[in-house]
């Protein structure tokens, strides 16, 4: 699993990719995100909670459970309004 620092760097890059003004910084084993007028926290889940790996917490209710960094990024983008680029599903072409 990515360390808090590696995850912070990935999320910080992701904010730029999505065109969201903000910063992500490592916070222990997790990440603190200040972006789009919101503050979010990502915490590593207890290993006993697998397949949950990450918890995304906006401080307003129960944190969202994420089984992977891929799901975490999707949730974050949705929360932060990073829809500058229309999301596209991967498609595999027809065999010629």
């Amino acid at each position, binding site marked *: *699993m*990515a360390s808090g620092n*590696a*995850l912070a*760097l*990935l999320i910080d*890059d*992701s904010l*730029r*990719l*999505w065109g969201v003004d903000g910063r992500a910084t490592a916070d222990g084993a997790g990440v603190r995100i200040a972006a789009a007028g919101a503050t979010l926290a990502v915490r590593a889940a207890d290993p006993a909670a*697998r*397949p949950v*790996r990450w918890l995304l917490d906006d401080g307003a209710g129960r944190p969202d459970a994420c089984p*992977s*960094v*891929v799901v975490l*990024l*999707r949730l974050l*983008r949705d929360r932060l309004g990073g829809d500058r*680029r*229309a*999301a*596209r*599903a*991967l*498609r*595999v*072409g*027809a*065999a*010629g």
Partner: protein
Amino acid sequence: MTIPVAVLTGFLGSGKTTLLRRILADPRYAGTAVIVNELGAVGLDHDLVARSEEDLVALATGCLCCSVRGDLVRTLLELEARRAAGGVPPYGRVVIETSGLADPAPILHALMTDADLGAGHALDRVVTVVDALHGEATLDRHPEARRQAALADRIVVSKTDLAGGIPAELAGRLAALNPMAPRLAAVAGAIAPDRLLAAGGAGAADVGDLVRALARAGDGPAAGAWHSQGIAAIALVRDAPLPAVALTLFLQALAEHCGADLLRLKGIVALAEAPERPVVVHGVQHVLHPPEWLERWPGDDRRTRIVVIGRAIPGQWPGRLLDAIIAEVAEESRRRGT
């Protein structure tokens, strides 16, 4: 029989039609059907190209990339039907010459994904023509020209007789936009067509180009990145074979988060499940060709090497994403004892 379909693109006045005429003059390419797309109601280029009306189709309805789903697919299928009925001479190859302002990506998507076309056609290479005299200024001014270069499998630099070769500045710009595509000099369109067109799908055929481009990138987790006016080519090199699920998740996430700004992706990948047989991945934006398994590695270097060409993609982002996914997949494998 699968018919290779090559896409010939390049900005206005770059020399596409001259190059096409030279290709068609080569006896080895006599069985080539040509689809010419022209902007405006009065087509000129097809009059310059035409050898016989039977095997040339002009689309003068506007920019091909804007109407590709309807016009191009219908045209190719109608052409095939006419060939089958004996209405046009037999042909074994199609070349689509785009208008100078076309974005090739929608054309490539149609060729890669249309189920009806897929049964009888395979995307060949994308050949982009760049003018040695004005190419650099054109790249500066026109984003369409940058996209055409970024999407190319081969870049032909035309009018090199007038410019005294390929200007170093232009070569540098093109290398930054697309380090994977070989750059070939043409004088009045003179270039061996077999250096431009492949026998079939270009993915596996171009592994050598990819390997050479990445050899120039050096080593390390983020092997290299080239930048030119917002378009970056980012190289990833990984020593350890990737679990197949990690590669799948990575490609899905690239498509999901980069959208239309992911221009091109090519890679040769060592999969943990079959490390002796590399997989070639090859895509345009969010659309991938079906992966191709090679029988063996093309050389001694058995590392995974992937190049991502995109617009405004942070240089470290793909590598950081890939590493995070690999780490999670490894942890999940340990957890399951697999």
